[in-house]
């Protein structure tokens, strides 16, 4: 499975890694014992399903009937499916919005935390939304953003502004979904970035202060450049995570209005479990693997590049 927001970030390959040669005797048996459960799990629930998924993608299976081999028909269809391309477009739009909001707001929050306080309570409070199940988050915000009875619209109308159909207007629906997921993820992102800021040595700031650099200047000239590795890392995690948006959409907009929020994950799900086109859904999923593979590769390059920059 992929990194998703909420899974801790993996430490990158560290320095003292390959010094195994010293105690050079095979640990075959112990290794087999230690690895057996993980390998069974991997084989059964990753490898085998992946192979099966690839097979389904070349059939017309509908869950209930016998699969029939159709070659590359599903892929040919996919190339001409406007909804598939639309879902990629929508997903990309969401990724940009979500990343933008989370990075900017997360950085701002992290900077505030870093410069103002070490309060643990405050940090714990900020991370609470991340602990709320996505489904609950979606339902809660659907209620808060309701066009008629939602609290946010009460605020708007109270301030003399017109009420908005946040989740029912094609222009607002996707940004609203991005705001919802950002609400849940920003505190977490901020904490990651805050930790990164703590790593910047104190004397760097002192030097900057001696030079007469203001807070803002210091932030952009000193803090930010030194945080490039962690920023790149957060970018990778959030990017891949954003591509898998499902719960919030499934609960709030169900892909509407007029496909405005039909992200790729939801589209695949719908093909599989609403229309029971398991074959086509598998072809869609495999295409997503390809897209993500390319993206991850590019990102890894980026990550490595920025890491070596600062080493």
């Amino acid at each position, binding site marked *: *499975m992929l990194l998703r927001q909420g899974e801790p970030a993996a430490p990158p390959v560290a320095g003292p890694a390959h010094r195994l040669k010293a105690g050079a005797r095979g*640990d075959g048996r112990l290794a087999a014992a230690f*690895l057996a459960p993980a390998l069974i799990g991997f084989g059964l629930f990753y490898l085998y399903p992946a192979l099966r998924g690839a097979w389904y993608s070349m059939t017309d299976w509908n869950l209930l009937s016998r699969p029939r081999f159709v070659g590359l028909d599903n892929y040919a269809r996919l190339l001409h499916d406007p909804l598939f391309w639309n879902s990629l477009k929508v997903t990309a739009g969401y990724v940009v919005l979500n990343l933008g909001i989370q990075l900017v707001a997360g950085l701002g929050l992290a900077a505030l935390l870093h410069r103002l306080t070490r309060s643990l309570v405050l940090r714990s409070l900020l991370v609470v939304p991340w602990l709320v199940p996505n489904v609950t988050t979606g339902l809660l915000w659907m209620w808060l953003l309701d066009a008629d009875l939602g609290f946010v619209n009460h605020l708007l109308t109270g301030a003399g502004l017109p009420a908005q159909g946040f989740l029912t207007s094609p222009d607002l629906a996707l940004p609203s979904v991005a705001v919802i997921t950002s609400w849940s993820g920003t505190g977490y992102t901020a904490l990651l970035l805050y930790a990164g800021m703590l790593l910047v040595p104190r004397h760097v700031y002192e030097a900057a202060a001696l030079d007469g650099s203001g807070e803002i200047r210091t932030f952009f000239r000193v803090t930010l450049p030194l945080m490039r590795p962690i920023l790149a890392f957060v970018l990778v995690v959030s990017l891949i995570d954003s591509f898998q948006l499902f719960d919030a959409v499934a609960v709030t907009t169900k892909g509407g209005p007029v496909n405005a929020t039909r992200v790729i994950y939801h589209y695949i799900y719908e093909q599989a479990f609403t229309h029971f086109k398991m074959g086509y859904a598998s072809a869609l999923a495999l295409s997503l693997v390809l897209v993500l593979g390319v993206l991850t590769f590019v990102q890894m390059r980026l990550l490595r590049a920025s890491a070596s920059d600062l080493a």
Partner: protein
Amino acid sequence: MNRPSRIRIGRPLAWACLILAVVISLFPLYWMLRTAITPGRELAGDNAGLLPRHPTLLNFERVLGLTTREEARAAGGSGADLDFFRYLGNSILYTGLVTAVQTLLCAMAGYAFARLRFPGRDLLFGMFVAALMVPPIFTLLPNFVLVKELGWLDTVPGLVAPSLLMTPFAVFFLRQFFLGVPRDVEQAALIDGAGKGLIFWRVVLPMSRGPLLTLALTTAVWTWNDYLWPLLVAPGEETRVLTAALGIFLKQSPNTAPDWTGLMAGSVLSIIPVLLLVVFFGRRLVDSIQFSGMKG
């Protein structure tokens, strides 16, 4: 956000921003509670004030199954049967089982990849890394079919199977951690004649409590919040988990509205366990996220 460049005006303004952020984080949750204590029948006309006009605990009673179907419907809610404590139990079982077993087994696997020498190690590990890139939905469909073929739909084994033994991420994470652990300690134990297996249990595991807890906490939160998989493989009454059970407050029949007050009461109850986690493990939780940040 922190536009002020002069400290004197800047600091209060910065504090204001920070407090605003906390309010934005928490207010929706307050609204959840506020809706949960509003009588269902009054919600349509009473949804703007900070407190409901006639606060009630009836919605919680409904969720906990303390009312009859007729009472629930009379209160403007769903008359569907709801066995909250069973769903809670299922969620705890699902989360506990996956977190404990997965963390332990992945620690073993991670250690093997980091410290043991055996043929094909790099190839195997390469496969695990590759699996990191496969979106879960790709394996979700065939896994659903597999669980079905094993006859495990609506059973606990079916629910936990795909994540119980490993996730590529957990193995990857812990392997990276073990790589970074200084070898001196193990070396010393080796010289004392202890086998590598014993060293793992006696020395390495106790040393690694921090990262293990980090992984366990996040795995727990993530499993607790999992929705799609349990909904697919375990929709049955016996194995339904909390997130899936909340769906019961959705539209009961076409053209009706969700039972908002019941839904919000159920949501409040469903996040109490995670809030307890914050209260008791606040430092640990924050540290563990930051730990990831530092290592990033």
